[in-house]
């Protein structure tokens, strides 16, 4: 309460137009206590597609850079953070937030925890952490918005790129975790959708055990004697360690894509079009690290909150919640982005990157859609995969 009133005061001092109507929207960022993805050694490995730091960094940058806009509209946003240890903790925190007058929740949590939080409150929940398609499909919720591109969007982006290169014969290598299995199914569906051919799907295992070399040795896994010929290797490795060196360990001199080599991401710090360098530079200046795809998604969550606050500066929270899913957002990717009505996913271009620069963008040139080409990435309206949405 004290923080909120201070924000109002600040808005009054700074804003030429901040009349007595200035409202402070409280936003709660739910984070995972002792998040294994944010451990120092994990962050230092900096695998492509993994978080580079806390989600609060991106949201903070978005809120700070919008100060002028918020002041001009006579609005303010305060961000509070809460770390939770499990799904129950997420549920309790969400319920408490609603009682405390919070206007929106940003979830930097695993899917099940996010669902627990979302089921405890009708407040809008912005997902910036979990790319699982089930959260947009069978486990979707009407009031959850997804800033991070779904796995299916990433797989579609990659498949479109392969089609445009005519790299049609795909050797799939999939990791051992349950997440890998889920993502492999998504990749296989994308391969089918774009009429590519999966010459084989082979499981790999990270191991130094000579008895397991059929699973662990990249040269054996990709030898033409075992798998025939292929144009490209698509590796699914949610952990990241096996994929990291794969581009230079396979039997044939072929490109690797997926979780190493060429990766489809929401953002890459070297992206140099559409004002992207300014965004990456502001982020790096504020945090001392390069802006990752997760950071971009968190930043976009902040941008969405700002846009909702300036659209409904006087509140109430219900007006703020109502305007959130209808926003047209600018995320420095060259086109206006908005939330899909059918699953709450932010439609967006994706960047194909090798980690050093941006090689291509998706949707690929020539991939068309009757309404919006961005909807060639991920689940489309006629599929009706989310029953909670009209």
């Amino acid at each position, binding site marked *: 309460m004290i923080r909120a009133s201070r924000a109002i005061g600040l808005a009054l001092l700074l804003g*030429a*137009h901040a009349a007595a109507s200035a409202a402070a929207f409280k936003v709660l960022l739910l984070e995972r206590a002792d998040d294994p993805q944010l451990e120092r050694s994990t962050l230092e490995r900096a695998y492509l597609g993994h978080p580079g730091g806390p989600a609060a960094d991106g949201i903070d940058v978005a809120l700070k*850079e*919008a100060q*002028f*806009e918020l002041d*001009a*509209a006579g609005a303010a946003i305060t961000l509070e953070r809460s770390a939770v240890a499990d799904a129950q903790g997420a549920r309790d925190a969400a319920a408490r937030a609603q009682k405390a007058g919070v206007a929106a929740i940003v979830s930097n949590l695993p899917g099940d925890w996010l669902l627990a939080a979302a089921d405890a409150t009708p407040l809008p929940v912005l997902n910036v952490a979990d790319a699982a398609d089930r959260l947009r499909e069978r486990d979707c919720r009407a009031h959850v918005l997804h800033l991070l591109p779904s796995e299916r969007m990433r797989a579609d982006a990659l498949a479109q790129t392969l089609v445009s290169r005519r790299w049609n014969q795909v050797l799939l290598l999939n990791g051992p975790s349950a997440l890998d299995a889920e993502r492999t199914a998504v990749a296989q569906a994308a391969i089918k959708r774009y009429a590519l051919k999966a010459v084989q799907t082979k499981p790999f295992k990270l191991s130094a055990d000579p008895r397991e070399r059929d699973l662990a040795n990249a040269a054996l896994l990709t030898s033409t004697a075992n798998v025939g010929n292929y144009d490209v290797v698509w590796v699914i490795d949610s952990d990241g360690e096996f994929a990291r060196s794969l581009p230079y360990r396979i039997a044939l001199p072929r490109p690797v894509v997926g979780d190493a080599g060429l990766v489809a991401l929401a953002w890459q710090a070297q992206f140099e079009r559409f*004002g992207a360098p*300014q965004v990456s*530079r*502001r982020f790096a200046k504020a945090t001392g690290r390069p802006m990752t795809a997760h950071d971009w998604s968190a930043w976009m969550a902040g941008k969405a909150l700002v846009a909702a606050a300036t659209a409904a500066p006087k509140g109430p929270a219900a007006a703020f919640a109502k305007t959130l899913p209808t926003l*047209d957002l*600018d995320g420095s990717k*060259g*086109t*206006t982005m908005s939330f899909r009505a059918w699953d709450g996913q932010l439609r967006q271009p994706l960047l194909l990157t090798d980690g050093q620069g941006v090689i291509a963008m998706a949707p690929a040139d020539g991939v068309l859609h009757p309404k*919006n*080409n961005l909807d060639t990435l991920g689940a489309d309206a006629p599929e009706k995969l989310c029953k909670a949405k009209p």
Partner: protein
Amino acid sequence: MPPFVARIVLLFALLACGPALAQGVAFVSSEKDNALTVIDLKTLAVTGTIATCKRPRHMQLTPDGKQLLVACGESNAADVIDVATRKSVRKLPLGDDPEAFDLSPDGKTLYVTNEDEGELSMIDIASGKILRSVKVGKEPEGVKVSHDGAVVWVTSEVANLVHVIDTASGKVLNNVKVGKRPRRFALTPDGAQLWVTNELGASVTVLSTKDYSVIDTLQFQVKGIRDTDTTPVGITMTRDGKRAFVALGRANHVAFVDVASRKVTDLVLVGKRAWNVVLDKAEARLLVCNGLSDDLTVIDVASAKPLKTVPVGRVPYMAVIVE
């Protein structure tokens, strides 16, 4: 008329009006070349390049027409080029990451947007001193000084605002909400209307400079092109204020607009990502920089037809004509 006859007629028309056309040159800045390309306006051929500072973007002539100021984003300075000798005569510091600028009517003060800092800087050209920096919304871009020099307008791409800044005091007098990602300005000759392009709004907002109310919003539509690909940036007007020309970015077209009725009269197909536009003195030709096809399209204004597309540098930004 059979097509070949039409072509011959057009050819004669071109030849006939040839001598009346500009004898001068166009200087074209290209973001990735650190150089300006020089185009002969008579032959429409590239005659050479001028080395300049790093990442040249916005350019403008001094009021006497003798010097060309080139804002260089990576050099944090303007290169001052003597038009007659085509040599750099000095560097003018412009603060961090300068993008666009405008000059006071007396040519003494330069107003520049510093993209990274989110500031408008006022610079004394003679001494090179930064007189004042004014905080504005993030990623400020377009700058325009009023005819009397009393106010300067600045767009912020992130805040979706036009800032109205008093040049004497540096105070922000007004923040005017316009469309998404506002970019560039044109001012009617009577100074009454300020036209602002909205890159992600596929529109131009027409503001009254009296009370900053929105007089109108022009929405652009190009057949066969989605609204999200219509991204207007560059804009200019004829001296009589009757016609405006708006580059529509990724729609790869330039719109000719009748200012009084605010209706699009023609759409001209140009290169990829049509960016900044400029008219020659006779207002017979419009030069359009195409940022994604590394070329420049010359349009015949009377017929609204492209005459020629000239390859220039990498990522061309804008052209300035000297006649």
